[in-house]
C-alpha cells in the first residue's frame, strides 16, 4: 500500500518530498520516530484494542471475576442466555433503536433547522446560539439531574405547568416506566440539537456562496436551494452528523444511569453491560456478550465513517 501523506490539492508540492526525507533520516532520528509512534500506539493497543479483543474472548467464557484460573469455556451459552432467558435484553434493544430514531428524526433535524435559521444574519443570532449551545457544555449526568428537578412529580415544574401537581394524575416522568424513556429522550435532545446546530452552522459557513447565487438566478426557491444545492454541498458535515447521531445513541448511558441505573423502562444495552459487571452476580460472561453485541453494532457506523474519512486517501 503506497501512501502519500498529502493527497489533496493542498499539498501539491509535497508529494515527492516525503520519500526523499525518509532516506535522509539518521539512525537517531529513526529511534526518535520509533518512540513517537511506538509509545502512543502501545497505549492505544494495551488500553483500547486488547481489552476489546478480551471482551470478545470473555463473551465465550463463564467467569465470576475472581481468580483467573476460574475462567471456563462456555461456547455460545452466554449469547443464548441473553437472547432467550434475559428479560431486559429485548426491551434494551428496542430502547436503543428508539433512541436512535428519536435523535435522527427529532433532535438532529431540529439542530439543522436552528442552524439554518441562525445562519441568516438575523438580529441576536449570537445570543440564540449561546442559549442553544449551552447544554452541550454540560455532562449528560448533570443533564439527568437538571431534568430530574424539572420532571419531579411533587416539586418539578412540568407538573405545575400541566396543572396536575399534587393531584393523583401527576406523572412521575422519570419514574413511570411507560413514559420515562420519552422524558429521557427530550433531555438528550436538549443537548444533541445544540451540538448538531453548531456543526451545521460551521458547515453552512463553508458552503461556497456562489452556489446559492447560481441556484437563485436559475429561479430556485429558498427551499429548493437548500435541499438540492446547499444540503448536498455539506456532505462532509452530513457524514459526521450521521455518525455522531448513531454513535451517541449506542453510547447513551450516563443519563439513564443517573436516573435509575438503566432499569424499569430505561434499559439500554450499555447499561445492561454494566449491571452485569458490577453488583451482585458479577456475571462477566453475560456482560461481555452484551458488550460484544454493542461492539458489533457500533462497527457499522465506525466502518461507514472510516471509509468516508480515509477512503479517498487510499485511492489517491
Amino acid at each position, binding site marked *: 500500500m503506497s501512501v502519500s501523506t498529502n493527497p489533496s490539492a493542498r499539498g501539491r508540492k509535497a508529494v515527492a518530498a516525503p520519500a526523499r*526525507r525518509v532516506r535522509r533520516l539518521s539512525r537517531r532520528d529513526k529511534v526518535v520516530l520509533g518512540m513517537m509512534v511506538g509509545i502512543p500506539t502501545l497505549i492505544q493497543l494495551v488500553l483500547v484494542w486488547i481489552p476489546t479483543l478480551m471482551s470478545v474472548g470473555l463473551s465465550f467464557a463463564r467467569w465470576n471475576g475472581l481468580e483467573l484460573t476460574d475462567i471456563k469455556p462456555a461456547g455460545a451459552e452466554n449469547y443464548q442466555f441473553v437472547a432467550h432467558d434475559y428479560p431486559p435484553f429485548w426491551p434494551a434493544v428496542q430502547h436503543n433503536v428508539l433512541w436512535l430514531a428519536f435523535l435522527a428524526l427529532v433532535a438532529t433535524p431540529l439542530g439543522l433547522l436552528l442552524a439554518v435559521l441562525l445562519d441568516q444574519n438575523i438580529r441576536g443570532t449570537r445570543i440564540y446560539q449561546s442559549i442553544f449551545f449551552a447544554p452541550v457544555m454540560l455532562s449528560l449526568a448533570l443533564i439527568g439531574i437538571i431534568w430530574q428537578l424539572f420532571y419531579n412529580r411533587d416539586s418539578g415544574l412540568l407538573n405545575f405547568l400541566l396543572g396536575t401537581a399534587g393531584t393523583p394524575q401527576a406523572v412521575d416522568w422519570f419514574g413511570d416506566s411507560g413514559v420515562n424513556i420519552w422524558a429521557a429522550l427530550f433531555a438528550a435532545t436538549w443537548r444533541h440539537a445544540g451540538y448538531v446546530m453548531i456543526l451545521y452552522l460551521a458547515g453552512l459557513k463553508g458552503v461556497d456562496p456562489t452556489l446559492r447565487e447560481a441556484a437563485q438566478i436559475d429561479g430556485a426557491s429558498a427551499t429548493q436551494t437548500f435541499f438540492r444545492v446547499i444540503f448536498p454541498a455539506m456532505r462532509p458535515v452530513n457524514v459526521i452528523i450521521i455518525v455522531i447521531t448513531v454513535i451517541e445513541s449506542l453510547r447513551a448511558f450516563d443519563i439513564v444511569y443517573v436516573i435509575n441505573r438503566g432499569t424499569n423502562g430505561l434499559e439500554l444495552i450499555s447499561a445492561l*453491560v454494566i449491571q452485569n459487571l458490577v453488583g451482585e452476580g458479577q456475571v462477566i460472561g453475560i456482560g461481555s456478550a452484551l*458488550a460484544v453485541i454493542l461492539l458489533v453494532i457500533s462497527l457499522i457506523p465506525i466502518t461507514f465513517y472510516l471509509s468516508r474519512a480515509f477512503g479517498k486517501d487510499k485511492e489517491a
Partner: protein
Amino acid sequence: MSIAHPTDAAAAGSPVATGQPGFGPGRTGHRPGRPANNKQGRRHYGTHVFLIVMAAIWLVPLGWAIFTALRPKADTDKYGYFSTGGAFNFDNFTQAWTQGGFSQLFWNSVLITVPSVFLILFFASMMAFAVSRVNWKFNITLLIMFTAGNLLPPQVLAAPLFEMFKHFELPYALSDSGNLLNTYISVIAVDTAFQIGFVTFVLSNYMKALSPELTEAALVDGAGVWRQYWDIILPLCRPALAAMGTLEVIFIYNDFFWPLLFIQSGDRLPVTTAINNLQGQFLSNYNLIAAGAMITAVPALVIYLLLQRHFVAGLTLGSSKG
C-alpha cells in the same frame, strides 16, 4: 481528512483555509439579489417568534434549577416549589458545598483532568507528527486504528479493563487497594488512551496542511526529527492545540463513566461522577440537589464563556467525537 477542512477555517484560523477554493474575498458582503425585500422581512419575523419560543424552552430546565437552588427549603415547603414567596439567597450553595464536600471533589477533578489533557496533547501531537510529516508504510493503518478506537462505546472495554486493573498488583504503599482500582492513575490512563485517537486524527489533518518546506529548511540546517517536531511544527499548531486542549478539558471534566467504573471511594470521585450520589446524600432536599448541580455546571460554563471560540473550533475541527 475531508472531515476537518470545510468547517474549521474561520474558527481556528487553520492553515487549511488557504487551500480552499471558493472563499474569494468580497463574497460575503453582498448576499444574493433580494428583490422581495418585504417578504424576507416577514419571514424573519416568523423566525424570531420561533427562535424566541425555542430559546425559552431551552432555558426553562436550567432556569428552574437555578430558581430552586436560590430558595431556602423552609420557604419552598411553606409556599410550594411553584411560587415566588420567601427569601432568595445562596445558603443552599454554601450548604451543598460543605455538606457535599465539593472542595475535595473539585480537587479530584483537577487531579484527573490536568494530567490527562497534557498527556493527550503530548502523545497525540507526537503521533500526528509522525503520521503526517513522515511517509511511512503503516501511516493510514495506524490512523484508522486510532480513530476507530475513539469511536467505540466505552462499555465495550469496561470488563477487561476493570479486571486488568484489579489483577495489576501494586504495593500498598502506592495504592491502598493493592491494585490499580480506586486510583487516579487508572482513570487518567484510560481517558488518555481513549482520547489520543481523536486528537491525533485532528492534529494530523492540521499538520498535513502545513507546508512541507518548513521542515525541509530545518533539515538542511541539520535539525533532527525531535527539533522539527518540538521547535517548528508544534508552535505552528498552537491554535489547534488550544482548541483541542479546551475541548479535552471539557470532555474529561464531564466524563462520568470511567471514574464510576474504577473508583469506589466516594471521596475520591471527580465532581461529575459524584453528583450521582448527591440525590442519596441530600435525600429529597431538591433545593440542595439543585444547588449542587449548579455548582457542578459552573466550571464548564466558565470555560464556555472564556474559551467559547476554542471550544467551538475544537468541535468543528474534528467533530468525530460524540
